[in-house]
Structures are given as C-alpha cells and as structure tokens.
C-alpha cells in the first residue's frame, strides 16, 4: 500500500530524480503512453503555450510607465519592478498570504478528513460534498457573505466583543486576515478531499498490526497513519497553494482595495491603465514564483516517497 501511495504521490508530482536526470536518448515514452498524452499536449500547446508565449513577449515591451522609445524590446519592466518597493511589497504579501492559507487549511482539513475517514460509514461522501456547496454559489457571492460577517459592525465582531475577546471592533476587513480567512474557506474542501483520499489508502491491517503490537492510539497515529498520509497532505498543500496564489475575487473584494496582491495588481494594471506590458511582466513573475514553490513542494513529495 505504501507503494501505491507513493505512486499517487509521484503520479501527481514529479517522478523519482533518477529518471528525471536520465539523458535523453531515443523516444520520450512508450508508444501507448505517447498516444494517451498526445491530445492533451497538442491541446495545451494551442491554448496554453501560445498564449503564454504572447504573455512573455508582451512583458518585454516597454510599459508606458517607463517612457521608453517606440519599438523598445527588453527587460526594462523587470528591472523596474525589482527596484520598486511597492512591487516587492506586493510580491512578499502575496507569498505571505499563500503561506498562511496553506498552513491554516492543512491544520483545519487534516482533523476533518481524519474524522470523516474514521466515521466513514456515516456517509462521509455526502459530508464532503456538502463542504463544497458554497463553491457553487461562485466566489462573488461567498465573498459578499464574508463582507457582511467580517465588517467592523458585523456579527463576527459582535461575537468577539460579547465573548470579551476584544472591547472595540477589530478591523478585519481591509486586512490580510480577511483575505486569508476567505481563502482558507475556499480551499478547505479541496484539501479535505485530498487528505481523505490519502487516508483511505492507509491500509487498515497496518493500523491493526500496530494495535496488536500494543501501540497506543497516539503512537499509532504518529508512527503509522501520519507518515503514510503525508503525501496526501503535501498534495493538498500543492493544490491549496495553487488556488490561493491564482485567486482574484477574494483579495479584490476583501483587501479593501489597498492590500493588493499580484493577481489584483495585474487586473488593475490591465483594466485601469490598459498597460498590458506591465501586467504581463507581473504575471510572468507570479508564474515564476508559483512554479518554484510548487516544484519545491513536489520534490519534497517525491523525496518523501523515495525514502519509503
């Protein structure tokens, strides 16, 4: 079973480093695998690679902010961004928000998935499904709900004051906390589902074996269940991070307009100043950062799988 968990891990991520580093020689796959992948690769080339190429090209045109001569083509936008404080601040804020979202989402979703798994016969399929219902209303409507709940004069602040946690309203909206709260709520069902699947693959007889050897529930969890479900946790972290960093509506509505993140900065730059060059530059930077993080997480996953 460990093997198949690892297979899941490596399937979702990068396979073992050895294969990765093998020199290219001959074809890149067996005939069948190639046949299975071909439609997707052709499709993605048309609808993803070409637009991405255009984005990359746009990012080397001069933004009107920089007043470069006509026909300029070069890295001026990148130089400008890396030397301008507010852009750096926004990049750091984006990554900080994503980090918090990943941490809280995992902290909340692990016990939830664990409980669902433990009481599996009580209909956890439907239970997980119910968790994903708010998604269906669309992020616009759900974010509206958060605006109502988190306002200075809203219910959450009234409860906090009633509980005596604070004496005057805390400004939650317009803070990064509001964005984090909404994104944790949005990503939680995805993470629960991932971890639940991973936990389902921890074979029961391993736990029973540990029990028969006299391991306490805590030890069984710590030495058997947790390590075996770790790939699921990492895979949940990857999807949570991906959803968080590409999210647009929650930061736009809940950040008060002042707490810009990279996606909202991009949209304002296109929609407000029609500055496609700068927007594309920020998009490329965003892509580089998120790919780096995802690949790092994936290689952790692979290393973990390889160790077992």
């Amino acid at each position, binding site marked *: 079973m460990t093997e198949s968990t690892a297979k899941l891990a490596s399937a979702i991520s990068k396979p073992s480093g050895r294969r990765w580093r093998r020199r290219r020689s001959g074809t890149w796959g067996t005939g069948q695998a190639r046949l299975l992948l071909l439609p997707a690769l052709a499709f993605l080339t048309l609808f993803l690679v070409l637009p991405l190429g255009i984005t990359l090209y746009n990012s080397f045109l001069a933004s009107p902010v920089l007043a470069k001569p006509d026909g300029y083509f070069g890295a001026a936008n990148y130089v400008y961004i890396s030397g301008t404080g507010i852009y750096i601040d926004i990049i750091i804020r984006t990554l900080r928000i994503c980090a918090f979202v990943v941490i809280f989402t995992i902290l909340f979703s692990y016990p939830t998935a664990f409980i669902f798994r433990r009481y599996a016969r009580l209909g956890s399929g439907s239970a997980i499904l119910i968790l994903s219902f708010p998604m269906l209303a669309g992020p616009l409507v759900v974010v509206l709900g958060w605006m109502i709940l988190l*306002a200075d004069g809203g219910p959450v602040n009234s409860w906090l004051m009633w509980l005596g946690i604070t004496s005057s309203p805390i400004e939650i909206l317009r803070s990064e906390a509001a964005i984090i709260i909404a994104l944790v709520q949005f990503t939680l069902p995805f993470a629960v589902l991932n971890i639940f699947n991973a936990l389902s693959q921890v074979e029961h007889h391993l736990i029973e074996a540990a029990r028969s050897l006299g391991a306490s529930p805590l030890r069984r969890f710590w030495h058997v269940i947790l390590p075996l479900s770790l790939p699921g946790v990492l895979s949940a972290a990857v999807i949570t991070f991906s959803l968080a960093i590409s999210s647009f509506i929650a930061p736009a509505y809940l950040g008060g*307009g002042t707490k810009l993140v990279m996606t909202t900065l991009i949209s304002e730059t296109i929609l407000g100043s029609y500055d496609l060059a700068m927007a594309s530059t920020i998009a490329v930077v965003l892509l580089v950062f998120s790919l780096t993080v995802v690949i790092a997480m994936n290689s952790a996953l692979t290393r973990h799988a390889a160790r077992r």
Partner: protein
Amino acid sequence: MATNKTRRSFLKTGAAGVIGAGAGAFAAPSIVLGQTRTLTISTWGGDTEKAIKSFVLPKFEKEHKAKLVFDIGSMGARYNKIRAQKGLSTVDVFFSTDEPVYNGMRTGLFAEVNKGNIPNMADLHDWATPTDGFGVGYGLITFGLAYHTGLVKNPPTKWADMWRKDIRSKLALPALFHSLMPALLIRSAELGGGSASNLAPGLAQLSKLKPKKLSYFWTAWAPLLKSGDVHVAADFDYYIEGMKDKGYPVAWNNPTDKGFATYQHLSIPKASKNKGLAEAFLNAMLDPGVQEAIANKTYQGPTNKKVKLKPAVAARSTYGDRLKNIRFFDGRSIDKKRVAISEMLKTKVLPNWS
C-alpha cells in the same frame, strides 16, 4: 446490477452534455445570422443596459429593422477587448465615461461621427461634445461627497472635509485606477498648495487619509456604509440618488469648491461595419424623450438642451443649478498623464494606505 445502472446513467449524463454542448456551439452564431442587421452595443450590464432595453430598443429595432445585441462588462474589460481585437471587434457602439475615449482617439480606435446622421446633436449643450466629433456625451454626472445621514452629524460640504479627523479614517475612495482618481489628485494638490502641474503636494495630502475601502463601484462600499465602517464616500451623484431610493441612510453633497463633471459617453469604433446604423442609435440616445426617461429612472443629467426635467428629478441630477458648480477637467491632458499619475499613486500613496 448497480454497476450497469450507474454506467448507463453516466453515459446518459455524458451524452446529454455533448448534445447540449454541440447544439449550443452551433446555435450561437445562427442567432446572429438569422437577422438582417445586428447592432452590437458594448455597455455596462445592469442599469444602463436596462435603460436602453426599456427606452430605446423597442422603437429602434422597429424603425430600423435591426436587432440590438449587448456585449456587457466593466468599462475596462470592454475597452481592452476592442483594443486587443482591433479590426476584428464587432462592437458598433461603445458606452463609457469620456476617459477611455481620449485614449482610444490617441491610438486611432474610434471613428469620427457624421453629424449629418445625428440631427439631435444640434440641440446639445456646448459642453456635451468633449471629444470633438469622436462620439458624443449622452449624460452628465457629478463626482462629489456622499455621507451616512445617521452617523455623520456634521456633513462634509467641501473637498477639504475629507481630511477632517472624524472622516479621514471612515472614507470610501475611488480605486487607484478609477477614472476620477486623477481629478481627485489634482484637487488634493491644489488644497496642499500645488496644482495640476505640481502634483507632489497632492500625493502628500492623499497619504494623510486612511481610507477604509477603495472601489470602482458604489456597490463595493455600500455594505460597509450599512455596517457603519464607512461614513463618507467620494462617488457619483446618480449612484447616491439610486441608493436613497433603495432606503440607504445616505445623502450627497456637491462640494462648494465644485464636484467633478464626468460624461457618460458614446463612441463608434473604427472597426464597426454598421456605422450608419450606429449613428442612428447615437441619435436615439440623444432624443429628449429618451434622455428624460433615463434621468427619471437613473438621475443621469441630460445633455440635450430641450429636456425639461420635473423639479423632483432636476434637484437630484446634474442639471439646472448644479451645472453652475461643477468642474470640467481637461480629459485630453489627463489621458496623456494618466499612466504616470496611476504609478505615482501606486508608489507614493498606496504604501501609506496599506
């Protein structure tokens, strides 16, 4: 058995999806082809679209044997669309404030209209054609100060009141890239001892504010007005009049040092293949009856001199006396500086706000 049944239902679901999808994909173009003449209106979805559909569409479609279709979305998205599509754009009439029009004129996106096809242009106010023949203003609105009638004991009456101690941290302001932000920066500069050509004092002034919310539309700060988070908002008169009708505890003042006039503007992209019909549509939008109906419904001030608004509506629109106390900015020069202004706001003001 269960497997059998479910497989069948799965296949059914899949098949239904495919058939529905296929039908949809091919049904869409046929709607367009089925009509002799189609005029594509690019506009805000919501009140403006509703006003066109109720006050212009029925008569226009009948008179011109044409069909109106609507490409809806925010102004920025729609403007970017025609910019990117250039000659392929199917938009015939573009609704916006005057701001993107200057940009589009500079980049050769809009066509000059033939006044001969728009007889109603003869009845317009002098100020109603800011873009020199590249389209026409069909409405006028004023950007001023809105306030919560229950929570603000001493209503703001001039722009400087935004900096009052009880207001400056309870403000809703336009977003950094909002079309009125350059005007607000210029006024702030003047209040700080600068001018349109010396904006630095304006940046310093704005940095002293602590806005609760930056937004493009009143709908983004309205919930915060209700919850008491926002007390004062800088926004358009006609939005606030609409809010009053919906029962919000809100009122609007035209600042004594003049609110900012803004056009609701119509233009025709060069790529339009129905320019004559589009001009007929512009003419219909300038019709006194249509403009009065739009004002009655939405409180946008008319640009046609012949429109006589009822006193109740007149008092709530950019019309009559209000016209004497509004300020027109030079859109053309703002357009040239706009990107620089946005960047200044982003780098010099935003860090103090976030």
